[in-house]
């Protein structure tokens, strides 16, 4: 594939001066260039580009591109789903939260995990049996194609872009700190690599990049957790005792703190995490990469195991960081400490795990964990971009613009163009949002996924009386409510726009926006007496049988 090699050469040419200039800048900003980290990262990039080359030769049809031909096993897919979920934000963010507040980190982890069993019991096999490439395939299975696809695609693209902003800004800052690379270069580098993986290797490359990264991340986190426990002769009592002795908050780190203070916020956060997970397009898409419902179920079993194990590790890592980093001036931002006290970390509160890796394993292990963190971002943004591109090419282009009659080659071409455009948008937004407060974006992404994507998807599979009108209007209302309440809530209205009091008092709108979505979908559907509504309801039986048995579903295409 000469075209591939040509691009590769081009990219390597852009990278070389990049690292060279980073060297100079790195010294200027007295941010030591991290050589072991860069070497390990280059090995990862080299390896994943080789996989992309291998995958590119096997990616010929649209099914290969969107779903790796449906030939991923349950175990592999479980690892890839876990990889999608174990983003740099959750690895660094949750260990950082444990470092700052102790027990609250565990509350967050549990919220992120408990959605998975529900996805398994109610969604995964039906999704596999009904869908082909995107979750809109399922939502529009018996409803009118165009309006449902437009709504679903809009929900998917909005979720993907918000998530991409969070990942890109996070990656730029992380790489700036760890590798001594300037922020813009880091964002561009991530964008280019992601475009390469997705356009050439499609879902096959994206999945393997994710699997490798999940393996590296789990190994690195396991090593760190064992190293921490080794310091305390493998006694949890000793570890927690030392942490309580050292931390400013003392014994309070062992009990729930300020994360969820009132029942409404608690339930709302729970709903956002649980239903939001079940509405994330890049996660839902993974269920189409396995051959049948059996493998789809196994995927969730393995994913839940890996994710649960990972969260237990991050909890130990967070506490390890309290003991080994909290009072160690080597890792603390002394200037900041002199002003505001406490134990502010160099690079911010999300750096606890990174500093801990240095404390337990020296420069080389720090290099390894930094490279893994970078790899994590790359893998997650690739999955996101692929999901966004599929919504554009499969839902909007092939099924709305071309009304479902469109040849595969053309659809794939559109998806590759969409990938490049999304990549460029991600780079642009990553740079634009560098100095912005982006605390709201992941919350907003989850709120949209929970309030627009999930209710329509769920009711289309479970409720015979759902009609097109109900799904479109109710789903849109859910979407609008989520966006409006996030803007009027404390994070945007007070923290970003600077007003004194929030109009909507809660940080997490999901309880309200999800309720609005479900109630309005229900109300509009039962009062819908149109011709179309009758068609929608009559088609439920055949859809339900297929969703329960898989008879008539897409199987593995022979390879």
């Amino acid at each position, binding site marked *: 594939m000469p075209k591939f090699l040509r691009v590769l050469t081009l990219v390597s040419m852009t990278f070389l001066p990049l690292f060279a200039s980073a060297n100079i800048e790195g010294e200027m900003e007295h941010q030591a260039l991290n050589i072991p980290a860069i070497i390990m990262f280059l090995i990862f990039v080299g390896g994943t580009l080789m996989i992309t080359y291998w995958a590119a030769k096997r990616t010929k049809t649209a099914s290969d591109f969107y779903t790796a031909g449906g030939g991923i096993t349950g175990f592999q897919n479980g690892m890839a789903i876990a990889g999608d979920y174990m983003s740099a934000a959750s690895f660094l963010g949750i260990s950082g939260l444990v470092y700052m507040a102790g027990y609250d980190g*565990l*509350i967050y982890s549990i919220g992120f995990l*408990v959605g998975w*069993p529900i996805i398994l*019991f109610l969604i995964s096999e039906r999704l596999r049996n009904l869908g082909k490439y995107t979750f809109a395939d399922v939502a529009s299975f018996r409803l009118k194609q165009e309006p449902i696809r437009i709504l679903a695609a809009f929900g998917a693209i909005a979720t993907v872009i918000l998530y991409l902003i969070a990942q890109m800004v996070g990656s730029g800052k992380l790489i700036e700190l760890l590798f001594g690379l300037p922020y813009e270069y880091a964002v561009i580098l991530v964008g280019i690599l992601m475009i390469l993986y997705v356009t050439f290797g499609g879902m096959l490359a994206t999945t393997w990049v994710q699997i490798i990264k999940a393996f590296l991340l789990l190994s690195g986190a396991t090593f760190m957790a064992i190293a921490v426990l080794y310091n305390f002769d493998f006694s949890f009592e000793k570890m927690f005792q030392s942490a309580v002795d050292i931390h400013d908050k003392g014994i309070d780190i*062992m009990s729930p703190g300020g994360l969820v203070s009132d*029942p409404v916020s608690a339930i709302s956060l729970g709903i956002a995490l649980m239903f939001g997970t079940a509405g994330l397009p890049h996660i839902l898409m993974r269920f189409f990469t396995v051959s049948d419902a*059996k493998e789809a179920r196994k995927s969730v*079993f393995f994913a*839940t195991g890996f994710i649960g194990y990972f969260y237990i590790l991050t909890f130990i890592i967070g506490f390890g960081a309290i003991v080994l980093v909290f009072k160690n001036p080597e890792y603390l931002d002394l200037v900041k400490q002199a002003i505001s006290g406490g134990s502010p970390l160099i690079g911010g509160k999300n750096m606890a795990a990174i500093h801990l890796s240095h404390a337990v394993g020296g420069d080389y292990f720090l290099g390894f964990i930094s490279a893994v963190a970078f790899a994590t971002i790359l893998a997650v943004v690739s999955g996101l971009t692929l999901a966004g591109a599929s919504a554009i090419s499969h839902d909007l282009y092939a099924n709305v613009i071309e009304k479902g009659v469109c040849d595969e080659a053309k659809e794939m071409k559109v998806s590759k163009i969409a990938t490049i455009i999304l990549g460029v948008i991600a780079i642009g937004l990553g740079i634009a949002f560098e100095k912005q407060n982006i605390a709201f974006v992941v919350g907003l992404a989850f709120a949209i996924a929970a309030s627009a994507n999930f209710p329509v998807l769920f009711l289309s599979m479970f409720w015979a009386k759902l009609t097109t009108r109900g799904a479109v209007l109710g789903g849109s209302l859910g979407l609008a409510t989520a966006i409006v309440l996030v803007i009027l809530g404390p994070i945007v209205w007070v923290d970003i726009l600077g007003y004194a009091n929030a109009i909507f008092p809660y940080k997490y709108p999901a309880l309200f926006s999800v309720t609005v979505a479900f109630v309005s979908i229900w109300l509009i559907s039962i009062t819908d007496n149109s011709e179309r509504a009758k068609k929608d309801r009559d088609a439920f039986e055949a859809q339900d049988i297929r969703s329960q048995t898989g008879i008539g579903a897409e199987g593995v295409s022979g390879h």
Partner: protein
Amino acid sequence: MTDILVEQIKNHPKYQELTAKRTRFAWALSIIMLFVYYTFIMSIAFFPEFLGTPMNEGSVISIGIPIGIVIILFSFFLTGLYVYKANGIYDVLLKEIKHDLKVEEN
């Protein structure tokens, strides 16, 4: 899928058995999971001191920590239980339906 096949599957006694059993099992497990999680969340919202109680006299470890870990392990256990039943018992029923109706395996 043809309308005839839809009718055949729908009226097959094993199909009715399969969907009734699997649906009941799936909802039962979902409700258990939701109950466990929301009990946990509600105890944080209403009785935050409870999870902070020391495990035993003189220990710094609060009971919230083993409870949290147990919820994680329990979630994993439930997924295992469902996959074990669905991929074993329920899929056997499904296979028999397909066999009876001569539907090709895909």
